[in-house]
């Protein structure tokens, strides 16, 4: 396709330049994580230095990394799995048995996302106190699940709609009820879309900070909470801050990079025909 060699060269240079600029802050943080505090403040900034792992050791003394990481994993996977389990039947009905109200229900679901979390924080907090669920993974999983649910329904709906209704109709003729159609026809046919939805959910849950900071503490706090405890540096300790940041971001970054292809394939939100 590219006849023009010059266009290719320009593309390559521009593509890499922008990639470098966008990734630079992450790269710079990664370097700082392995510097000593002295090196982190050096001017001119150091590109070459003797790397140290000390910052990670100190971070782990201050916050229990493994516990927070484990909470992050459980909350992300739990809320994603349950979210899809709850959303899929609804999306199935909306895609294949729509009524006049389907559209309004969908818009209403999305409109719940416009409820600013901070506006309902106090009642949520009090409710968690009443239910004795403060600082539990159950609470965080439920909240994350609910705040992602409208998106999940919408995404699944858009993938389900691409599945030809004839296939489901054939299944129905063979006596498959809605749940069987869902399990044996729709899920296999819409796998790329479902995995894309799951990936987006996992990423959003991993990075969810607001609820995590406000309703969890040492027991169920995720990495987002761990990093927040570093957010008000009394005195300067950038290297430790960077180490903690890197440790919280690296798992999801690597996960995102590895699954990038699956993520991208499905991010259509039904907007592309």
């Amino acid at each position, binding site marked *: 396709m*590219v006849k023009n060699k010059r266009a290719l060269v320009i593309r390559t240079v521009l593509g890499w330049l922008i990639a470098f600029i966008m990734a630079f802050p992450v790269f710079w943080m990664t370097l700082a994580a392995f510097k000593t505090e002295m090196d982190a403040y050096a001017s001119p900034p150091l590109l070459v230095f003797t790397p140290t792992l000390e910052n990670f050791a100190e971070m782990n003394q201050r916050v229990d990394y493994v516990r927070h990481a484990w909470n992050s994993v459980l909350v992300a996977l739990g809320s994603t799995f349950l979210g899809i389990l709850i959303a899929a039947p*609804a999306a199935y009905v*909306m895609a294949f048995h729509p009524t006049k109200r389907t559209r309004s229900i969908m818009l209403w679901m999305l409109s719940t996302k*416009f409820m600013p979390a901070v506006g309902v924080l106090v009642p949520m907090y009090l409710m968690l106190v009443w239910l004795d669920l403060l600082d539990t993974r159950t609470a965080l999983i439920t909240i994350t699940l609910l705040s992602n*649910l409208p998106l999940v329904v919408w995404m699944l709906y858009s993938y389900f709609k691409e599945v030809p209704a004839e296939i489901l109709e054939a299944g129905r003729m063979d006596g498959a*009820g809605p749940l069987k159609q869902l399990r044996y026809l729709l899920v296999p046919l819409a796998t790329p879309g479902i995995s894309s939805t799951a990936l987006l959910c996992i990423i959003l849950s991993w990075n969810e900070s607001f609820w995590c900071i406000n309703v969890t503490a040492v027991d169920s706090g995720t990495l987002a909470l761990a*990093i927040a405890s*570093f957010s008000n540096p009394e005195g*300067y300790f950038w290297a430790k801050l*960077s180490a903690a940041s890197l440790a919280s971001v690296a798992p999801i970054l690597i996960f995102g990079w590895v699954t990038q292809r699956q993520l991208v394939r499905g991010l259509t939100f039904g907007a592309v025909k």
Partner: protein
Amino acid sequence: MENATAMSSLPTGSWFKPTRTVRAWPLMAPAVGLLLIWAIVPLALTLWYSFQGYNLLSPPATFVGLENYYFLLTDPDLPRVVWNTLVLVLVPLVVTVTAGVLLAVLYDGPFFGRGIARLLVIAPFFVMPTVSALIWKNLLMHPVYGLFAWLSRSFGMQPIDWFTNHPMTAIIIIISWQWIPFATLILLTAMQSLDREQLEAARMDGAGATTSFIFITLPHLARPVAVVVMLETIFFLAIYAEILVTTVGGPGVITTNIPFYIYSRGLLGYDVGVASAGGIFAIIVANIVAFFFVRAIARQL
């Protein structure tokens, strides 16, 4: 959708029991029910508390009528706070969508090492808001030790004290950096379904790159752009962590948006009543925004 309706209205054979539609309600109930509870219960409680004088430090709640709303609406800072909220939605929207379209076109075309370059571009999307705000605030934008300060000095310029002199710009830069990858990802996905033959035909007819971009690529991206605008509006209306970590809303209220205002006026003072009135106000503002611009966009979907 038409397809499904057409199918279910097909005459069914006499041997086949006409099970007209599935019983939709049990399948919808979990999702709809949970969201209903999620939407209504906290909202009702917020509404209730917004009429109470209730400070967590001096517990018994007393009915005070509209006092909390009066306090809120007569606050001279409020117009600025609403303005900031809108700025923090609109400016990053324009920046991320524009950049997203251009980057989607750029990274759609072939070049050396494109796969890796793409991975680098989307990296910021995986970084949690608190972390990215901390990196930008300290490692990059710090007026003395930050990398930008060093760059300015090496070019003989005065380093910019971002969070003192241009706090809003700084926050917008951080937010845009975080969300450009999201726009790019969605639009890149959309580019994959662009009709290449159409582009080729246009080229044969003598259309330049700019012409094909305006008349073929942009119209193709209209719907995905609508999706990006809608989703980002939702996230931008709720911006909180970035402000908390960098400027704490200041100087003054220059970088305070509605969520942060509720946090600082209500929650920091343990004033449940004012925080709740603020919450109701935020919900109203969000719904006005949703009404004006998401409805228009939702029609596209």
